């Protein structure tokens, strides 16, 4: 799919598929690896979008390919700016963390509405339409987004294979015990969050340039967050390819359903039906469920494993404080 080109509507679909794959892949570094369900990632998507739009309107970086060059700066800047926010948010855990981060989303949205001198409030900000040739107009955006996806996948892969990944997995399993063993949990959580939202902000920047007109309610949209989370859960939390697979299934499915059932809100029902079916039959997501099956098959073919040297009946005792 990545290098196939088609009509404009197809390119549009490819663009959004790749965008969500990048977002889901980046979200997975936080939600999948460390198990912290952040619902605030869309805030950073919006900040990235506004960062590019504002540089256009207030700094005048010019059109053409130049906005793409500021993307690394946007990513690094947003990542750095998220550090104190993450540090505060990570004082909470589990459901509280989800609520704190979703609050962040609405705070940023309100800021976008009200900081009119910067964002023009609800009127929105427009970006000049670049003079790319009409027949291949979508290609530069698509390639840029593909670059961010590659970066997200690379980051996921690198983190997973590094000690940082091991720290995050330990946090997901038992954070208190990880702390007790000397793992620097705050560092691991905050740095992975900064990396993740930096990537999300870069995707937001490309998105803004692509659709060339952004409003607070679409740039900072809870549905963007929900999309990332659903795709990660569908494909498989904590895996490298799961989030990407999830996006490649859900985005086309969503577009198709919206097209077929568009007149009503029925497409949302279809969308959630897909998700329910997956939760029912592959509760851990597609990739982990498949690899579990494969392992079971392999184990069945192998001879019975011998028990370890230590026998293992837990003996119940009275008077355990």
């Amino acid at each position: 799919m990545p290098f196939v080109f088609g009509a404009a509507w197809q390119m549009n679909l490819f663009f959004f598929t790749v965008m969500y794959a990048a977002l889901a892949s980046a979200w997975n570094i936080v939600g999948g690896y460390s198990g912290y369900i952040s619902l605030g990632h869309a805030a950073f998507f919006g900040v990235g979008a506004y960062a590019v739009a504002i540089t256009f309107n207030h700094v005048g970086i010019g059109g053409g390919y130049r906005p793409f060059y500021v993307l690394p700066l946007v990513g690094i800047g947003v990542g750095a700016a998220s550090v104190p926010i993450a540090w505060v948010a990570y004082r909470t855990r589990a459901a509280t963390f989800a609520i704190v981060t979703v609050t962040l989303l609405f705070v940023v949205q309100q800021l976008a509405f009200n900081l009119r001198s910067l964002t023009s409030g609800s009127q929105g900000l427009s970006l000049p339409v670049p003079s790319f040739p009409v027949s291949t107009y979508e290609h530069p955006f698509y390639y840029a987004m593909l670059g961010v996806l590659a970066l997200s996948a690379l980051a996921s892969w690198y983190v997973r294979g590094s000690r940082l990944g091991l720290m995050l997995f330990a946090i997901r399993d038992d954070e208190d015990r990880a702390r007790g063993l000397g793992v620097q949990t705050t560092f691991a959580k905050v740095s992975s969050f900064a990396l993740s939202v930096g990537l999300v902000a870069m995707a937001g920047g490309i998105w803004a340039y692509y659709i060339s007109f952004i409003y607070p309610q679409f740039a900072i949209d809870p549905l963007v967050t929900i999309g990332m989370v659903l795709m990660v859960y569908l494909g498989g939390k904590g895996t490298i390819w799961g989030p990407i697979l999830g996006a490649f299934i859900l985005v086309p499915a969503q577009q198709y359903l919206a097209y077929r059932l568009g007149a009503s809100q029925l497409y949302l029902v279809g969308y959630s039906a897909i998700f329910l079916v997956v939760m029912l039959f592959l509760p851990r997501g597609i990739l982990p469920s498949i690899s579990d099956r494969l392992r079971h098959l392999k184990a069945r073919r192998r001879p019975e494993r011998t028990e370890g040297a230590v026998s293992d009946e837990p003996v119940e005792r009275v008077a355990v404080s």
Partner: protein
Amino acid sequence: MSALLEVEHLEKRFGGVTAVDDCSFAVELGTVTGLIGPNGSGKTTVFNVVTGYLPADGGGFRLDGRSVRRPDPSRLARSGLIRTFQHARVFPNLTALENLVVAAPQGWRAAGRARSPADLRARALELLEEFTLDGHAGTPAAELSFGQRKLLEFASILMSRPRLVLLDEPMAGVNPRLVEGIEQHIRRLHAEGLTFLVVEHDMPLVMRLCDPVIVLDRGRKIAEGDPEQIQNDPRVLDAYLGD
């Protein structure tokens, strides 16, 4: 002997309940100190405060003679004070090997290193062998038996080469054969110079393993001495058997 850990006038309240009440004791270097007391006497709460999991409401503690002002579990672990939990806590989705590797004391600068670099791997494999888990290096901890998880947890605290180990009911729910095994490990490590503070309900074990033994009742220290003294102390009998 000098005190490795000194607990001074420690106080901890949960609402109206005073769990630890003006509690002071010391753990001398090179001992296996037992901490016993009836249920609800504050043993685990003392553990939780001393390891930084709960803030104290009063008093404090010293490690190596230095007062610990803002105790933090992670920092304390890196300075050599490490604990186990009741009920064998391991990281279920990590392999046995990774359970040990993650427990190695590495600063944040090591975050970019390989997930299990060769030196840590070698040390972890050594420990797995010591604890008869060497056949399970690649097994996710969730698939180990209860006894194996207990041993794995024990092994993981040794990755950091700690100086003081706090064991919270190491024998709870463990079968007699494994009790013996864990006891052997404690004795061996003690002989190698490690200091232990042990909370345990298995009295015969405490009496043959620990010296001195400290007795808590209602959050206070009521007695301290060698096992013989403790067994013959009327205050201790009172605390256990009621007034």
